[in-house]
């Protein structure tokens, strides 16, 4: 895997093509765009253009094009196996880790195609945090879990403060404040998931990808996480996969509906998707008529 140094070199070499490209990969001059409903104007932070993904010979995503607005919550819904996780993992290039996976198309983060040869996936993932579908805390102490991202990124901080703040935001602080040195694996499944959320937000990513972060949580923790997401959307862009329609309707500004086969069927303001979708298939899916 390339290190930051080599990337910087590559960038320097190729910067003639793209003179604005000095900060590793992403300039913050995000393009201006108008959302489909035309009611509100916002900047696009993540834009996919004709993204196709294959696992060996099976196509998991077909020609996905969408513009994810900055500082908003974008929900992805759709039946199991339709490619929501796959799309999420395209954004921070986690699919690079799967030998069988092949990604085609362009995916821009703040105007820079993250699949360009000069992009270092390590640097990318430092700016795009991720909470996985299955809780995966490290077999380390709760504190070390929260501080992991800062440690690998070499960021110096007031550790106690960051630990408390991140755990508070993830609605876990009260349950673990007296046992921060215990292993993260000793927590319950739902607590582990919240620990993973705390871990993901601790290093302050610009974009936070959340793959069903609330699937293992009770209603109280779920609503706390929803509050957190609301909160986060003031400063960060949140992309969240969920199977819970009410949740998507409650917390998101935009909703993308994927359907079986890896198609993006509709992408629009959440209100429009839930009240008056263009596509009958989307309407069927949302009202539960779709299998």
């Amino acid at each position: 895997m390339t290190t930051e140094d080599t990337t910087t070199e590559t960038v320097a070499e190729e910067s003639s093509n793209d003179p604005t490209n000095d900060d590793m990969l992403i300039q913050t001059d995000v393009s201006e765009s108008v959302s489909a409903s035309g009611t509100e104007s916002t900047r696009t932070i993540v834009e996919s253009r004709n993204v196709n993904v294959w696992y060996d010979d099976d196509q998991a995503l077909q020609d996905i094009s969408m513009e994810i607005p900055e500082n908003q919550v974008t929900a992805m819904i759709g039946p199991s196996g339709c490619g929501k996780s796959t799309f999420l993992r395209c954004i921070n290039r986690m699919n690079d880790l799967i030998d069988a996976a092949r990604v085609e198309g362009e995916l821009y983060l703040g105007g820079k195609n993250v699949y360009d040869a000069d992009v270092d996936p390590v640097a990318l993932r430092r700016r795009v945090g991720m909470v996985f579908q299955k809780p995966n805390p490290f077999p380390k102490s709760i504190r070390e879990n929260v501080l992991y991202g800062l440690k690998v990124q070499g960021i110096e901080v007031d550790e106690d403060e960051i630990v408390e703040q991140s755990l508070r935001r993830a609605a876990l602080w009260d349950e673990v404040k007296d046992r921060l040195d215990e292993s993260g694996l000793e927590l319950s499944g739902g607590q582990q998931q919240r620990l993973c959320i705390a871990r993901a937000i601790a290093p302050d990513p610009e974009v936070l990808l959340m793959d069903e972060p609330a699937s293992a949580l009770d209603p109280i923790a779920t609503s706390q996480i929803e509050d957190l997401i609301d909160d986060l959307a003031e400063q960060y862009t949140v992309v969240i996969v969920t199977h819970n329609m009410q949740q998507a309707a409650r917390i998101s500004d935009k909703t993308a509906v994927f359907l079986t086969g890896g198609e993006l069927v509709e992408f629009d303001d959440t209100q429009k998707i839930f009240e008056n979708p263009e596509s009958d298939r989307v309407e069927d899916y949302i009202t539960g008529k779709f299998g």
Partner: protein
Amino acid sequence: MGADNLDDSLTTQTENSPRELLARSFFFVCAFVSILTTVGIVFVLVTEATTFFSETAGLRGVTGPTVSIVDFLTGTEFSIASEQFGVLPLLSGTLAIVVGAAVIALPLGVATAIYLSEYADPQTRKYLKPALEILAGVPTVIYGYFAVEYITPLLERYLFPDIGFFNALSASIVVGIMIIPMVSSISEDAMSAVPDDLREAGYGMGATKFDVSTGIVVPAAISGIFSSFILAISRAIGETMAVTIAAGASPKLVEFGTVGAGPVSVPYPDPAYFLEPIQTMTSAMVQLLFSDITGGGVAYRSLFGIGITLFVITLIMNVLSDWVASRYQEDYD
């Protein structure tokens, strides 16, 4: 299945059907035979050892010289000719081999395991891992020959012109090479068993491959890695052929120098020990066996005294290994 024969289906005794009974008996007999063999060997070892120690020899009706347990364990001279049977020089030889081998094999073995598990592409791993394991199958006499014919001359030419023809250094180097596959193979298994979720979590946080390998995978696999260390060290302790050939047959207690002065002077073992011929517990046993092949003499009986000492050391290592494995085991479900 209909509801009417539900009762029937619940009461059939599959547990005691002839087939199950036969299988159970077969497995029991196999287990019993191997346990019996082990118990038998230990029994022989213990009873033979009792003929050597003066404390117990009387009970066995042994006539002829014996050695007290204390003299045996604290004696600083081992000499068949003068009937001095102190185990310390041999223990010192064994320890030298173990330390030298561990210095080589533990870091190299773990590094190899990290490479195989984290860096090598599946194709490379597919060929490299079995190839390494072949290294473990080379007869150890070949390693002894290799030490004498190649390593010692190389050491003599380039590093230590005064090195003995037989010496602890070349023997410990080959024993180290011999146990690398054990460390790397068991450690690699432990690292491969670390769930990919954890690696993904690391990469997802912006960790590099190095961060993930050393900061996540190795700690998560640490119990397996420690077990591999202990097994490899046990193997080095018990290694016989290579050290008999390469290390020599001169029982010698390591000398100590001191660093510092007065109250803060700290003794340290003199590294020059590695350049001299020594003798390990195992190679002494080989020599004793040949020195009195008909048995009965004190030299022959001392073989079992050394044997039981080795056995106790290895037993402690095994217990330690189990303890380490359970102490550092992580549960991922």
